[in-house]
Structure formats: structure tokens, C-alpha cells
């Protein structure tokens, strides 16, 4: 199982880079905090509407902070052509893609946890903490979808003349299904727990994850193979 070792090497390197340069993760975390504050300026969030607004705001924050953070992790590969280390090696581009998806997933999950905790503290909204165990699955599934698409497109955008800035346009429209399913699932969990409908959204998340992962896996090598 050489490819497991290779995947781990790449993930380890990404985490090392993160510790050294504090890029993707810290950007995601701070941006999510900032977004929540700005959201609050735009829409007055109070005790009465917090439970109806929470799912939407949280997922939009996840998507936005996530996509900007992921842009950063692929930039460090493009700069100075560092990804050529993998390109000219025994490691296949599929393994590289999977490894980058995992690194990005780890960063995303960290950011989401942080966002949820800050949300609870800022809006004094304890129901979110209580719902956390039930939220784990939709969060995980949603983040896998985000990471699958984000990893692919972040490499695409850093390879183009626009740089990272084109990334949100490509990313956000494509992940709208994940976003909506995530919001709906979270809404159900936080506001009323009718199992059947929840399952539908979870299934939808799983289907999109699978779809995005397999398609991206097949497409990724075409991006990197200049």
C-alpha cells in the first residue's frame, strides 16, 4: 500500500506548511469570525430569529471561508512550481488529489468547529451545542463535497491568469446543492427532528460527494498536466 504512505507524506507536508506559514487555516478561521460579525451588521440577529437564521449563516460562512482558504493551499503548490516535485515522481496525480482533498478537509473541519463555537458564544445559542453530535454527519459530508470541488478548482484557478480570485465564482455555484442540502439538514436538526426528511438530505449530500469526488478524481490530472 505504497499510496497510503505517499498520501500521508503529502498531508504531513501540508500540515507542516500550515504550522510554518499559518496560511489556509488561520485565514479560514478569522474570515469566518469576521463574516459572522458582518452578517450580524447586515441582518440583526436576536434571540427570536437566531434559530431560523443559524443554518443559513453557518453554511454560507463555511463555503466562503472554506473556498478562500483552499485557494491558499494550492497557491503554495503553484508558487515556484513546487507541484512539479509530485508531477515528476512515482506518485500519481490521483494520489496527489486525494491527499490534497484530505488536507483541505482537515482544515475545513477545524474551521467549522471553530465557527460553531464562536457562533454559540456570540449569539448565546446553546441549541447548536446540543445538536452538535447530530450535526457531525451533515458537516462531514458537506465538507467532503466542498473539499472535492474546492481542491479541483483551486488548482485550476491558480493556474490561470486571474489567480485565486476566480475561484469563488467557479466554486460557489457548483456547490450550491451541497450548500442547500447542508442548510436544510442543519435546519431540521436544530429546529425539529423528523428523521425521514433528514435522511433525504443526507442521502443527497452523500450522492453529491460521490459524484464530485469521482468526477474530480478523473479530471484532476488534466489540470496539473500543463
Amino acid at each position, binding site marked *: 500500500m505504497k499510496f497510503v504512505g505517499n498520501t500521508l507524506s503529502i498531508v504531513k507536508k501540508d500540515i507542516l506548511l500550515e504550522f510554518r506559514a499559518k496560511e489556509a487555516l488561520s485565514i479560514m478561521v478569522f474570515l469566518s469570525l469576521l463574516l459572522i460579525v458582518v452578517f450580524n451588521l447586515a441582518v440583526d440577529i436576536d434571540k427570536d430569529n437566531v434559530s431560523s437564521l443559524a443554518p443559513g449563516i453557518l453554511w454560507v460562512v463555511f463555503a466562503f471561508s472554506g473556498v478562500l482558504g483552499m485557494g491558499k493551499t494550492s497557491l503554495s503548490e503553484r508558487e515556484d512550481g513546487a507541484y512539479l516535485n509530485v508531477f515528476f515522481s512515482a506518485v500519481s496525480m490521483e494520489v496527489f488529489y486525494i491527499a490534497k482533498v484530505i488536507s483541505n478537509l482537515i482544515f475545513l473541519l477545524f474551521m467549522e468547529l471553530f465557527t460553531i463555537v464562536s457562533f454559540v458564544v456570540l449569539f448565546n445559542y446553546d441549541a447548536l451545542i446540543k445538536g452538535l453530535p447530530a450535526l457531525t454527519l451533515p458537516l462531514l459530508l458537506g465538507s467532503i463535497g466542498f473539499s472535492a*470541488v474546492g481542491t479541483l478548482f483551486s488548482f*485550476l484557478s491558480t493556474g490561470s491568469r486571474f489567480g485565486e480570485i476566480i475561484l469563488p*465564482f*467557479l466554486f460557489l*455555484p457548483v456547490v*450550491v446543492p451541497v450548500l442547500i442540502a447542508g442548510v436544510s439538514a442543519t435546519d431540521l436538526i436544530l429546529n425539529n427532528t423528523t428523521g425521514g426528511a433528514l435522511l433525504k438530505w443526507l442521502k*443527497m449530500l452523500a450522492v453529491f460527494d460521490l459524484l*464530485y469526488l469521482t*468526477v474530480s478524481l478523473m479530471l484532476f490530472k*488534466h489540470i496539473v498536466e500543463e
Partner: protein
Amino acid sequence: MKSFRLTKMLLLTLTVLFPLCFYLIFQVAPTERIMGDVQRIFYLHIALAISAYLGFGVLFVSSIIYLIKKNPYWDCLASSAGEVGLLFATLVLITGSFWARPVWNVWWTWDPRLVSMLILWFIYVGYFMVRKAVSEKSRRARYSAIVGIIGFLDVPVVRLATKWWRSIHPRLDRQEGGLDPLMVKVMLVTLFTFIVFASIVIFIRFRISWAEERVNTIFNEMEVSHG
């Protein structure tokens, strides 16, 4: 040349089909009871939507073939189909808006079908942004093919949006008592006309950009041989 004759023939049929369509829509089709004459937009509206799907579908398929064959022919076809698809998608949004204004009393509303269509539109705007953002030819072809393939996954979402989410946008399969049979016939003719029309536009657009591509190649060959 054979394909050129085919185009000619199809163009000729269109000169018959289009007037026929408009005659059917405005003269033959019954006036809808509640909405009145404005409902006649329906025939264009749905035909445009299906034609847009057709454009995106051709883009999707030729993008896949491009990534396998790496022949610029397919990239040319993909971008031509994409242009046509985006054009028709824009027209769907516009005709929808014009219909919504009298019926729902707004230009736009946040209905799943409408939003998903707008999102689809965004995706293909993104497709052309990528084409603009990459100047090197083969890289542009590869990158945009990737966006075209991933983006097409959204078409089923638009189709199913009214099923998945609560929507005020009409659905034919929900119409109580079904559509007036005459309306169905008119719709089918319009649909057929627009599919032919869209195919021809894609084809002509493709021929132009492919000719451009080939002229460039010939130029190169000349420079190669004459130094």
C-alpha cells in the same frame, strides 16, 4: 461539403418552421383561462430551456471527448455549444422574467427553479471567464473542459428543482387534468423547431471558429515552410 448541404436544407426547413411556430402560438393555440395571452410565452420559454440544455449537453460531451482525444476540434465544438447554451439560458431568464411580471407581479422571485437556473447561468459564465483567463490554447481547452464537465452536473438539479424543493414554478406533470391537447401539440412543434434551430446555430458557430482555427494552422504551416 455534405454537412454544408445538410445545413442548407435545415435552414430552409427553418424558414418554414419558424413562421409555422409563430402562427401556431399566436393563432392556433388556445388562450389560457387565467393568465391570458401572456401564457403564450410558455412555448418559447420551454423550448428555449430545452435548447439551452442541448447546448450545455453538447458542451459536456465534447469536453469529455476533448480530454480523451486532445483534439482542438472538440474544444471548438464545446465552446461554440457553450456560447449557444448560454445565450438560450439568458433568454430563458428573460422570457421567464417577462412572464413573471404579469403573472406573479414581480420580475424575479426566489423560487428553486428560478434560482437553480440562475446558478446554472453563473456556472457557464464562469466557464467563459476561465476561457478568458487562460491564454495558452491547450491549457484553456483543458481547464474549460473541466468546468464544463463539472458544471453540467447542475443541469439535473435544475430539472429536478421543482421536485426537490417547494416551488411555485409550474410543473407540467402536476397540471391538474393535464395540458390542453392542442397546447401540447403546439409545444411539441415549437420544441422541435427550436431544437433544430439551436443545433444549426451551434453547428454554424462551430464551423466559423473551426475555420478560424484552421486558417491559423495554415498560416503557421506557411510560415514553417517559407521560414
